[in-house]
């Protein structure tokens, strides 16, 4: 690899966003949208190329490293391991789909569809940077930078109270980010005192021996930021408010891509840089995670608003992911990684299809629907598929990841699993009850004569559904790239899977 492929990959969409933004207004019409879509597809192609060239197993690939700020020890360092690769893929897959799905949503917004697409591309590029960064400083820069496009996407497009929602989102994230900043600087101080001199390279920080107390403090700083990002109880309330106001497309990019930064960061930074502190915090984190699972699910059941409901389901799902991460065994970690990808797909499908529904009805309140299946069977069918994937039905991709996390939790402690598993029952309730209230029963007068999905809308969802089903039966390609990364993480936290209690030898008595 002579060319800096990752840099190209993350600059391509950013360039695209600049181009789209600068397109003169008078060439209106669909041109800006087409250009934007073109760039995102181009990015997708390039990313697929990278994924093909990626050899499963062997550490960081496509690595780039340039010293950036010597005195800070900051580098411009990119690289992909299995975890990063899957999330980059998720990003580049979802962006064009979201663009296609929200073709019309931007028109009425603050800067028109053009602006929306420009922001989306900017977000795509920055997200790729986040997932590819192998330098904490660089990661932090991208981490904060992603807030700006999302802020303007939320504040500029969507419901009547979108501005407040955007501010709430921004302040929550900024607060988390600043707390994290303290820890980031702490890392500098520690590394500066080490003989190696200041450095922010994850690879070198992982080798650093950080004092127990310092390590724990810094871990807490990082974890708070990531917990806000990933929304975990009790710092989740910004998410429902935001998704309630934002357009479906924004919600997808926010929940499916951006929030993954939180869980990604927990693996990449909390576990790999602060193994001791991670082990120390495990009990608390796991309790929080299980609580998030049940809390999110129950809140989803109680929600009267479709968008809020989906947001709360994500709180529950992120609980599963965090649980999988912190049980620190190969099932849990691999499950969590896979979960991030699958949750991205299923939640995207759910947001988009319900987005179609809401935009048709002009309301997101559940009691405004009923009997939609009769008037719009395709929409209903897709919504059911999306819902079933959200409740992790076997044969759909989320099942494998959820089962892995569950089993990983069981390996950690049966009791944890026993509580977490209640989540699957609650999931069935919130999904099917939503479907029952909106799609079945007598046709609500408000939905009478509702159009069924058009070709563009189906076209946007089709790839998602196809992926969900395909990965439901054959997730192994993803696991092949994830597993080595998981092994690396486990060696970092000095954990290994417990041997089964019964093996060949003992059975022969």
């Amino acid at each position, binding site marked *: 690899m002579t060319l800096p492929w990752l840099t190209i990959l993350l600059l391509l969409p950013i360039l695209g966003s600049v181009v789209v933004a600068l397109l003169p207004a008078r060439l209106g019409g669909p041109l800006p949208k087409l250009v934007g879509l073109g760039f995102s597809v181009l990015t997708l192609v390039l990313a697929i190329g990278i994924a093909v060239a990626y050899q499963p197993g062997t550490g960081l690939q496509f690595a780039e490293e340039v010293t950036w700020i010597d005195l800070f020890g900051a580098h411009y360092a990119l690289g992909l391991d299995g975890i990063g690769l899957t999330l980059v893929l998720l990003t580049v897959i979802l962006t064009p789909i979201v663009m296609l799905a929200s073709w019309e949503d931007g028109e009425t917004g603050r800067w028109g569809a053009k602006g929306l697409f420009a922001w989306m591309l900017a977000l795509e590029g920055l997200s790729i940077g986040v997932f590819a960064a192998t330098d904490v400083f660089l990661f932090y820069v991208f981490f904060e930078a992603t807030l700006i496009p999302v802020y303007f996407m939320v504040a500029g497009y969507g419901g009547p109270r979108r501005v407040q929602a955007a501010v709430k989102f921004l302040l929550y994230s900024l607060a988390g980010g*600043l707390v994290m900043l303290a820890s980031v600087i702490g890392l500098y101080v520690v590394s500066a005192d080490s003989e190696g001199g200041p450095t922010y390279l994850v690879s070198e920080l992982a080798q650093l021996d950080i004092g127990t107390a310092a390590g724990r403090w810094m871990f807490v700083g990082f974890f708070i930021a990531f917990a806000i990002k990933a929304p975990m109880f009790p710092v989740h309330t910004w998410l429902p408010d935001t998704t309630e106001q934002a357009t479906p497309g924004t919600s997808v990019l926010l929940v499916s891509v951006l929030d993954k930064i939180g869980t990604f960061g927990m693996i990449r930074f909390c576990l790999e840089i602060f193994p001791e502190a991670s082990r120390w915090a495990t009990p608390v984190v796991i309790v929080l995670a299980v609580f998030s699972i049940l809390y999110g699910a129950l809140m989803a059941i109680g929600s009267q608003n479709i968008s809020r409901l989906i947001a709360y389901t994500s709180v529950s799902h992120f609980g599963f992911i965090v649980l999988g991460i912190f049980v620190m065994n190969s099932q849990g970690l691999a499950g969590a990684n896979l979960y991030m990808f699958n949750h991205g797909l299923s939640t995207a499908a759910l947001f988009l299809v319900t987005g179609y529904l809401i935009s048709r009805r002009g309301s997101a309140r559940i009691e405004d629907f009923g009997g939609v299946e009769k008037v719009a069977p395709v929409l209903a069918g897709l919504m059911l598929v999306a819902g079933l994937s959200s409740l992790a039905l076997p044969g759909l991709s989320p099942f494998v990841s959820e089962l892995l996390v569950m089993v990983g939790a069981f390996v950690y402690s049966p009791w944890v699993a026993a509580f977490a598993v209640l989540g699957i029952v609650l999931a069935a309730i919130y999904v099917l009850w939503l479907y029952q209230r909106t799609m079945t029963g007598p046709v609500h007068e408000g939905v009478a004569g509702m159009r069924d999905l058009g070709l563009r809308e189906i076209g946007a969802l089709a790839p998602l559904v196809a992926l969900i089903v395909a990965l439901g039966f054959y997730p192994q390609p993803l696991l092949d790239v994830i597993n080595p990364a998981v092994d690396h993480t486990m060696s970092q936290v000095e954990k290994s899977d417990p041997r089964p209690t019964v093996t060949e030898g003992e059975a022969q008595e």
Partner: protein
Amino acid sequence: MNGFDAPKIEYFTVSPILIVLGVAVIGVLVEAFAPRKLRYPLQVGTALVGLAAAFATSVVVFARLNPFAGDVKAGKVVAEGALAADGPAVFCWLLVLVLGALSVLLFAERRLEAGVVGFAGQAAALPGTEAEREASTSGLEHTEVFPLIMFAIGGMLLFPAANDLLTMFVALEVLSLPLYLLCGLARRRRLLSQEAALKYFLLGAFSSGFFVYGIALVYGYAGSMGFAQIAAAVQADGGERGLLLAGIALISVGLLFKVGAAPFHSWTPDVYQGAPTAVTAFMAAATKVAAFGALLRLFYVAFGGNRTDWTPMIWAVAILTMVVGSVLAISQTDIKRMLAYSSIAHAGFILTGFLGIRSLDEVAAGGLTGVSAVLFYLTTYGFTTLAAFAIVTLVRDGGGEATHLARWQGLGKESPLVAGAFAFLLLAMAGIPLTSGFTGKWAVFAAALQVGAWPVVIVAVLMSAVAAYFYVRVIVLMFFSEPVGDGPSVTTPSIMTSVVIGFGVLATLVLGIVPGALIDVLGRVGVFIR
């Protein structure tokens, strides 16, 4: 009986100061003798030329420090020990000169006020009287502002280089007195402007009273005014410690007053709001640089020996300053006042970096020190705030500048470019990455953490979050609320203000993305000579 040996002055090394003061004097002469028509061009011309010359010479002086040799003890004491031309001092010179030149451009802006500068046509003329009306119609303008600012700049060059208490006091007054006057010279809203001048003057004089008394006490303790001798005395730790502590306390009152740190901040909002915006910009940017330069030298060089005595006090002041600045800014409704409180908060952040004092042996050569962190932050903040105030001068309505936040609603629709630039500067002040504000915060927090001042850093971090709120609030106003009534209009400025804004935005961006070079230089020169 025998001949005396004349005091040895290294004229070239101190030439920047001499040039600036000289140009100021020339300016006075110009006022006296040049015909009215010629004054404006002459004043602006001489001022800019003088600053350019001073800048050129200071560059040479800076180069002689040879910052890339890695010799951290670069620099020398000049003028019989009165001045120290070392890394921090000369860097402050460069910074003040650039900021000063930009401020002069703001002063010289004529297009915004329809062909006259934004200062009172005739300060003597009473507001609302025939005389004033006549003065404004006949296009009178006070070109004395240029000599005044030059004097102030001269004092600001002297201040951070002052190597004994007396010089420091003189410098303090030289930079303050012109500012008092400048504050009172607004063309619009004269009453507020004069009130600002009065408040600034009285409180300034009051604080310098403390300052002088502090000098007296320290002199009493150390038996000398020179920093080196004071340091020696502090090391020896003989004599009446009570005098020393009281002296430190009173001197720091004077200095903390200048930087606008709580609880000595109360003048800042009123003066920043009342003063002509150009002057406010100049004060916010340049005065902070000079004052912090002096503060650093005094405490690091003279009182470095017993830092354990005073660092806790600075902890408290820093925390208080950040809290007061951030919290009070939330409820402001006037943009200039809000920026004033934000500047208080930033003073707190800088003090956080100021805490990063370590003895020389602890500092790795070329590593990040408290000094370099503070100087870096001053650079980033100076340009950002200068540009921000410059933009404030553009947003106007019938009654001059529309500084009430409500008048900023929908500015993003009105003129996206200006609003965008302002939003960018605000994000920088909030410390968002890829802006200089972030790297600056990073530097000062790191310096503080290095000496284990983590509680201060925690507070700083939380307060940054609070501060983010009111910056974002302005962005929301500009982009996401509908204009009220006819809304404000953005007047197109002349090239001068445009240059200032452009330069500030550029600096904010560049220092945000590639701060490496500057940080490295500061890492090398960021040590005082003793």
